[in-house]
């Protein structure tokens, strides 16, 4: 891992206001996910729910570098990515509830969030299935001569999939502006990376001649700095770049995970690197935050999350008459025959 010491100069360059915003966003995501977990146990949210707790620095540190016109595709652990890309968290919570006001109208659910206005082009729940799409998005950016880039977020579990390799190769071969962002939380469901990959992640990217760095994914400042350099490169060179963020998920893979594959001590150890605590300390050290300031942030986040829950609760269900909507574009019924 490239160890990045967060010097006061780095903090100064990012700026107090922005760092406090990073802190707010991470706290917000933490509270949002904790609340979603509770609502799942109450039956308000169903299906598969994959919580992002522990990994917040990855989304906040990286997506904050992007411009609104940059396209993001993510995998199914996507709440954090969508929200940081600008998707209204009320519509994310409503989507988890399956409501008509959800960012996918209640048709997608937790794993399939979409908001085209914000250029969040989807959560994808087939492991590595969105990586080819990112190549196509970046190809379109390049062919059109526009200045935006594509960012593709995926887990360590994607790396053994064929689509990972096809996508890295073609992106490098065709020199398209895509940022590959791997959130390595050590596990694909219950399988440790050591049991699924024979080599090192960044070595693989390097084998496809893609510049690759490892970064501490639990240090938002480090993620931000690495991504800033990466995005500058991708935009300037119109070529792919690869970041591996070393992180950890605190909760089970989904709400249905009994966590038989890891010991509690491992989770406790990871919590010592917690991204929120780390940034909080860094800001306190330079005198930009005090205890009261942190509590204010936390309270604001809790209130915002409650507003999301209230919005979702009060929103209507999609009408049964909409069942056949959007099967085919330009065809209101989408029926297969004229019978």
């Amino acid at each position: 891992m490239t160890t990045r010491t967060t010097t006061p100069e780095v903090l100064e360059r990012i700026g107090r206001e922005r760092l406090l915003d990073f802190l707010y966003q991470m706290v917000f995501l933490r509270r949002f996910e904790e609340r979603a977990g509770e609502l799942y146990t109450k039956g308000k949210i169903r299906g598969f729910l994959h919580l992002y707790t522990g990994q917040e620095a990855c989304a906040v540190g990286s997506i904050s570098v992007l411009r609104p016109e940059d396209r993001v595709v993510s995998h199914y652990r996507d709440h954090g990515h969508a929200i940081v890309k600008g998707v209204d968290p009320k519509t994310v919570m409503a989507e988890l509830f399956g409501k008509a006001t959800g960012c996918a109208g209640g048709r997608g659910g937790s794993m399939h969030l979409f908001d085209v206005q914000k250029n969040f082009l989807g959560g994808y729940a087939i492991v590595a299935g969105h990586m080819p799409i990112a190549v196509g998005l970046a190809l379109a950016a390049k062919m059109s001569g526009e200045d935006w880039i594509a960012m593709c977020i995926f887990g360590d579990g994607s790396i053994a999939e064929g689509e990972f390799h096809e996508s890295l190769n073609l992106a490098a071969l065709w020199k398209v502006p895509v940022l590959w962002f791997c959130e390595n939380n050590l596990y694909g469901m219950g399988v440790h990376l050591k049991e699924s990959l024979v080599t090192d992640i960044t070595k693989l990217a390097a084998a496809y001649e893609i510049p690759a760095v490892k970064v501490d994914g639990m240090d938002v400042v480090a993620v931000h700095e690495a991504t800033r350099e990466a995005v500058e490169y991708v935009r300037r060179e119109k070529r792919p770049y690869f970041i591996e963020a070393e992180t950890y998920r605190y909760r089970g893979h989904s709400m249905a995970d009994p966590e038989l594959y890891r010991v509690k001590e491992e989770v406790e150890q990871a919590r010592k690197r917690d991204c929120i605590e780390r940034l909080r300390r860094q800001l306190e050290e330079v005198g930009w935050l005090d205890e009261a300031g942190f509590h204010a942030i936390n309270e604001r986040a809790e209130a915002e999350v409650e507003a999301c829950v209230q919005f979702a609760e009060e929103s209507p269900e999609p009408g049964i008459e909409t069942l056949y909507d959007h099967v085919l574009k330009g065809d209101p019924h989408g029926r297969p025959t004229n019978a």
Partner: protein
Amino acid sequence: MAVLRMRDALREALREEMRRNPKIFLMGEDIGKYGGSYAVTAGLLEEFGEERVRDTPIAESVIVGAGIGAAMAGYHPMVELMTINFSFLALDQIVNNAAKLLYMSNGQINVPLVIRMASGGGSQLGATHSHSLEGLYAHFPGLKVVCPAFPADAKGLLKRAFRDQNTVIFIEHTANYGLRGEVPDDPDFLIEFGQANIVREGRDVTIVGYSGSVHQALRAAEILAEQEEVEAEVIDLRTLRPLDIATVVESVKKTNRCVVVEDDWKFGGFAGEIAALVMEHAFDWLDAPVARVCSKDVPMPYNRTLEYAALPSEEDVVDAVLAMF
């Protein structure tokens, strides 16, 4: 009107559409310098350049996925997959992404993409290169499935595919590429999806086919007329999704008999779907159960005699028809 072979009609469609719409570009294995494995794209690289005629690595999943991504960002790509057998390597992209994104995103993302592939046996290419699986793609809501049998239809339908806002699976029968026919040269010549074509009129039996099997049906109809005084009506479905079952049902109400011919396997195949729809909509008009003439239930053998035996033939169609009288 000009007399063109099917492959040339397809190329004309691509050329005209690419001239019309700068957002169309082509991707596929060997479509550029090699000219396409069935020579459909020959000469397009020279006219449109490497940016719009892209030779790709042999990586079906990322080719289709990149087509989806580019389609999401304002392009209208065409991906050529050599044969339907290789499309299985891209099934995830076609089925999980192209077919579902509009619905999952609540109408926010559509995927205007044309995926062309060849199907069909009869060339002794063995079990991995010879099957016809149009019905597989017709199974999925969110896709459109086109399978022309004649050069003019091939052109009109392929041009129409580039006016669609959805993903169109465009399947060509390898035995048809050299087939000649009159083709309109009007650049606005389009054939609507979901319109079956009555390619031969008759009063005694309705024979339904698509792609390669339309030609078996027509040959069988000639034999039936000459040797048995049976006048068969032959219907070319042209598109499987959307499916013009109304034309079939109307015909069956006239002839009271129906045979479906296809190169795909019978068990779980599209012919069964046609049979069920005819039963649902014309049960009282049927004088005999709907018959299906399909491939035998085996992976395609290489040996010439065995392959011939495995594929449906015009004799099989004639026999199926005669069994109804």
